[in-house]
């Protein structure tokens, strides 16, 4: 820390930040555009000009750009200096010379950083009287709208898209006041992080296209903190709602998890909550159609069929911990399934047990960003956890920063750091059977089949600690790679190991755990992460239960209750039918119509994650709560409430209704020690700030009574829920000190855009003022004695006449719920089978997956070995997802038929 003087006031400032950050952290309103807390400084916009004085006797001073000025002990600055203020006002006036002043029709209006900064500088009269340059806009795909005339050329978009996220198809073209930010021609933005442009752009050049179709001003929407459930990463989000419809998903800052950015699946994958596929009433399936019935009738019916006889419950890794627990309680632990089939069920359990006993800590995504020696072993993280992949991309920056340290260049001096980093070597290693988007960020991207990747992992562990088992008969190249990676991991201060379940390989997980143990045995403190399949996979593994396979044999003549789970994605058709046909009754609780729901006898409509509250446990082992933003019409309610109602109806009196979510959470924490800390994940529903409950709407929300006037002019009381600490209205408290888990939107006086986040943080880029978001439940065992898995697999051997079919994970297409959101479905490319070896253009393959035959387009993939092919899981066969041997029957282009697809 250093003492500096800003406008005559002495303040303590961090020395590792620039003066702009120091001013903002000191509470000054200093406008800026090109600086971004995660992207650093480049000095392009010249907006943050301040006066710097050489010493106390210097009365003239000179103008400097705060974002390019380091904080040094004793430095004297003025933000309020008239000359600096005049310059800042003039910068906005210059920016405005070509800005169209179309705020009333601009979707950024009301949350526009340019608006805020313009007001802040005091510029309000246009003196530029000449015409404005205009640009053509581009069609950028289903996610992002483009309106280039609004551009103020801050360069943030390309710095995020290219420098930070590694995208290549967005650039800056032309020169002088004609600079153009876009693609070389119209076309869908290729980066899976394109949606961040919407938040990174300080004005309305890049806006949210799906939101645009149901647009509302920021101040007119209710907000609620939420957690993304489109993968296991657990990114924090804010959901906006108006008039009962979810409008959009925004990033919510969590310093240890997703920080400033989301992936596009997370940002645009919520649309299923508004889709026609939603279940909105209880129903009976009659002749294959869902027929609505009154909720009470459905409950009465359930009461009759379930009053006696065995109940079997199938939980779900995409349902909340609370609902899963309620079902488990209703049916009994011995009749409860995690809802996962083999091999996923055992692998998730293995991953969690390895993490729980490992000497390594589970890495947060923020920790991953600064690792100086990292290995991704046998997982395409860029597809299975895109946001984690974005964090892993930053590892390259660790080498940049080391070069910067040598040159004594501060890390925030972005352009210099990137220049200094040009010749550095990334400390990231990727081992994967297929090409991944992370390869370009790695020192070395090694192609290896899952078995061979695991063997390489074992060999690395052995080279770190010779008491770990080695893989025999390694090739020369494998031996060299193993030694090099082992050396790099040993030399690292923050070694990081990442693997996952994509290739359904226990050996990969064990090999990764062996490396972690070996590093720990050598005195290192390794970080580890396993990518898990779904939003609550970790929670279900911790809760425990039977696999679906075990359930198939136990559910004969039982009443089967399925919680928010489409079993047709998990069981092949034969076993799916067996399970349902053998059960006495099938009862489904879900928010959407699925192939499972359509086979049920009675269905109860459960609230989606936007309509209720609950807890998810991310792959990091972090319990996080999502809060409702929509107050749905009856009979929609949380699945756990349905389960309590069902218990009542069936006279299963051991399940008593919970009055509110907190009661249920408290019960789980008491009954299941592993979840003892989940009450800490977020404040309870009786939380108040300075004695007043929190609000979820802005003070200026409009149409509170008028918005329903077309239905009825009578005032109705605002909706309420006993489960959430956020009140549904504009009445209540809101402050920068509110808990980070409860922030419904970011806004402070003078700062209406998401940039107001700066004020909610203890220091910019640091912790939230209102405390951490979520609580970690799984920690390794710091001083665990090295215990090594000894079962080294044998090397992959191709088979004559058969192909090893590997699952090709995709950001868009292979995930269940997000594909029910139209923008994601539009973005998803058609399924193809990629084949190692020559394939004639336009060819198709016939292949049998899980007992069914499909015809799919085939393409040659020269990066795959001969005898290996890939297929996107769930997109061809609904249930297929694990690697296996297949026969591929190639058909010539001339014999093309319609391809078959599960989605």
């Amino acid at each position, binding site marked *: 820390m250093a003492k500096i003087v800003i406008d005559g006031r002495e303040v303590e400032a961090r020395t590792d930040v620039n003066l702009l950050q120091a001013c903002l952290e000191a509470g000054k309103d200093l406008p800026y555009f090109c600086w971004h807390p995660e992207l650093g400084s480049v000095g392009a916009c010249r907006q943050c000009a301040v006066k710097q004085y050489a010493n106390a006797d210097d009365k003239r001073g000179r103008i400097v750009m705060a974002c390019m000025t380091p904080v040094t002990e004793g430095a004297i600055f003025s933000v309020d200096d008239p000359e600096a203020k005049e310059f800042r006002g003039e910068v906005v006036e*210059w920016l405005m010379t070509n800005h169209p002043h179309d705020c009333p029709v601009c979707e950024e209006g009301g949350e526009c950083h340019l608006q805020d900064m313009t007001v802040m500088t005091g510029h309000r009269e246009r003196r530029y009287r*000449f015409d404005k340059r205009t640009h053509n806009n581009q069609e950028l795909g289903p996610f992002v709208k483009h309106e280039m005339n609004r551009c103020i050329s801050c360069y943030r978009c390309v710095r995020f898209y290219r420098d930070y996220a590694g995208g290549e198809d967005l650039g800056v073209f032309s020169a002088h006041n004609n600079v153009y930010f876009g693609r070389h021609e119209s076309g869908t933005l290729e980066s899976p992080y394109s949606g961040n442009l919407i938040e990174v752009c300080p004005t309305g050049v890049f806006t949210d296209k799906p939101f645009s179709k149901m647009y509302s001003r920021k101040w007119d929407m209710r907000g609620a903190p939420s957690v993304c459930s489109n993968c296991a990463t657990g990114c924090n989000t804010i959901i906006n709602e108006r008039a009962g419809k979810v409008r959009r998903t925004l990033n919510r800052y969590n310093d240890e998890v997703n920080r400033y950015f989301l992936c596009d699946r997370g940002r645009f994958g919520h649309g299923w909550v508004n889709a026609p596929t939603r279940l909105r009433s209880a129903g009976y399936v009659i002749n294959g159609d869902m027929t609505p019935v009154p909720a009470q009738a459905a409950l009465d019916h359930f009461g009759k069929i379930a009053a006696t006889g065995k109940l079997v419950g199938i939980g779900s890794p995409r349902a909340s911990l609370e609902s899963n627990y309620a079902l488990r309680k209703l049916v009994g632990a011995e009749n409860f399934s995690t809802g996962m089939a083999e091999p996923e069920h055992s692998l998730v359990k293995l991953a969690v047990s390895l993490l729980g006993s490992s000497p390594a800590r589970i890495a947060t995504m923020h920790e991953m960003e600064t690792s100086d020696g990292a290995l991704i072993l046998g997982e395409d993280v860029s597809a299975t956890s895109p946001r984690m992949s974005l964090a892993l991309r930053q590892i390259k920056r660790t080498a940049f920063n080391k070069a910067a340290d040598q040159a004594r260049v501060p890390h925030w001096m972005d352009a210099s750091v990137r220049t200094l980093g040009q010749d550095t070597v990334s400390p990231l290693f990727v081992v994967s059977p297929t090409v991944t988007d992370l390869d370009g960020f790695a020192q070395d991207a090694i192609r290896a089949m899952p078995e061979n990747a695991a063997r390489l992992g074992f060999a690395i562990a052995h080279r770190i600690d010779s008491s770990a088992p080695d893989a025999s008969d390694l090739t020369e190249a494998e031996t060299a790679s193993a030694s090099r990676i082992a050396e790099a991991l040993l030399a690292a201060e923050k070694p990081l190991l990442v693997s996952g379940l994509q290739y359904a390989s226990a050996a990969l997980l064990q090999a990764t755990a062996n490396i972690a143990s070996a590093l720990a045995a050598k005195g290192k403190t390794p970080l580890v992460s396993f990518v898990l399949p779904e939003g609550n996979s970790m929670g279900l593994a911790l809760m425990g239960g039977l696999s679906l396979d075990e359930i198939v044999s136990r559910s004969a003549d039982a009443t089967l209750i399925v919680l928010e789970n489409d079993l047709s994605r998990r069981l092949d058709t034969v076993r799916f039918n067996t399970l349902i046909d053998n059960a006495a009754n099938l009862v489904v609780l879900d928010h959407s119509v699925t192939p499972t729901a359509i086979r049920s006898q009675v269905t109860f409509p459960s609230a989606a994650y936007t309509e209720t509250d609950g807890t998810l446990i991310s792959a990091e082992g972090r319990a996080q709560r999502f809060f409702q933003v929509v107050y749905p019409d009856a009979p929609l309610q949380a699945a756990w409430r349905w389960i309590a109602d069902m218990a009542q109806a069936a006279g299963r009196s051991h399940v008593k209704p919970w009055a509110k979510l907190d009661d249920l959470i408290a019960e789980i924490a008491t009954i299941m020690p592993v979840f003892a800390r989940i009450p800490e994940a977020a404040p309870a529903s009786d939380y108040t700030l300075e004695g007043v409950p929190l609000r979820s709407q802005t003070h200026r929300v409009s149409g509170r009574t008028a918005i329903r006037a077309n239905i009825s002019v009578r005032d109705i009381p605002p909706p309420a829920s006993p489960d959430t600490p956020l009140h549904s209205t504009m009445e209540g408290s809101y402050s920068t000190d509110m808990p980070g888990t409860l922030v419904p939107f970011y806004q402070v006086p003078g700062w209406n855009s998401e940039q107001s986040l700066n004020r909610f943080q203890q220091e910019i880029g640091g912790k939230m003022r209102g405390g951490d978001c979520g609580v970690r439940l799984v920690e390794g065992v710091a001083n665990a004695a090295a215990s090594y898995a000894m079962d080294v697999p044998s090397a992959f051997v191709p088979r004559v006449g058969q192909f090893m079919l590997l699952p090709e994970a995709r950001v868009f297409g292979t995930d269940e719920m997000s594909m029910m959101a139209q923008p994601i479905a539009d973005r998803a490319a058609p399924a193809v089978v990629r084949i190692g070896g020559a394939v004639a253009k336009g060819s198709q393959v016939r292949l049998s997956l899980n007992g069914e035959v499909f015809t799919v387009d085939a393409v040659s993939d020269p990066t795959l070995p001969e005898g290996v092919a890939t297929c996107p899981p769930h997109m061809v066969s609904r249930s297929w997802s694990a690697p296996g041997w297949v026969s591929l029957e190639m058909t010539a282009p001339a014999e093309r038929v319609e391809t078959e697809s599960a989605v």
Partner: protein
Amino acid sequence: MNNIETFSNIPHILANGTEWYLGLSACVDGGTKLYGVSGRAKRPGVFELPLGTSLGVILNECAGGMQDGYKLRAFLPGGASTAFLGAEHADIIMDYPTPEKAGSRLGTGLAILLDDKTSPIGMIRNLEHFFAQESCGWCTPCRDGLPWVERLLIAIEEGRGTPEDIERLHDAARLIGPMGRTFCAHAPGAIAPLASGLKMFAEDFQRMVSKSTPGTVESGAAGQAA
């Protein structure tokens, strides 16, 4: 080192030694300089002369003096990004310190002449067009400030200027000119002829706006730096 002129000295210094090189000069800084003259001189061109040669020698002996019928009114001693000096400096020593003492810079050493029959406003407009067009577009004052300057000059030159326009030009000179306001020296260079020209040719500017008929919103034909 990326300047061809500097680079081309190296072999000769290596071949002949530093004493020889220093002896070539007419001032304390050694060597020769490529001087140039453009504008209404009889023989505009580039001339290699001892560093510290006077402009009188360069203009009159090498470039043949002013064309018949034209008088020197002012000049930019060292290219487009140096400040105007009046005709009273026509014999100035073209070394490093002397033009600076006079309020300009040696710059490239390529003098640009303004004669008595050419509009200084037109000359400055032409210079600012160059600078606005050559702006890379990185930082705001240069990217968006210079095109505005250019359009103001066009309006004034075409008889559509206002007294406020002259104020705006002064504002631009004051706000963009000092080093450190922009990312590189391109914009301060652009401001050097503007700021000095506004002072030196104040009467020309006043005369143009006093008889002008400004419009409210204008699209100058040559307005957009393209």
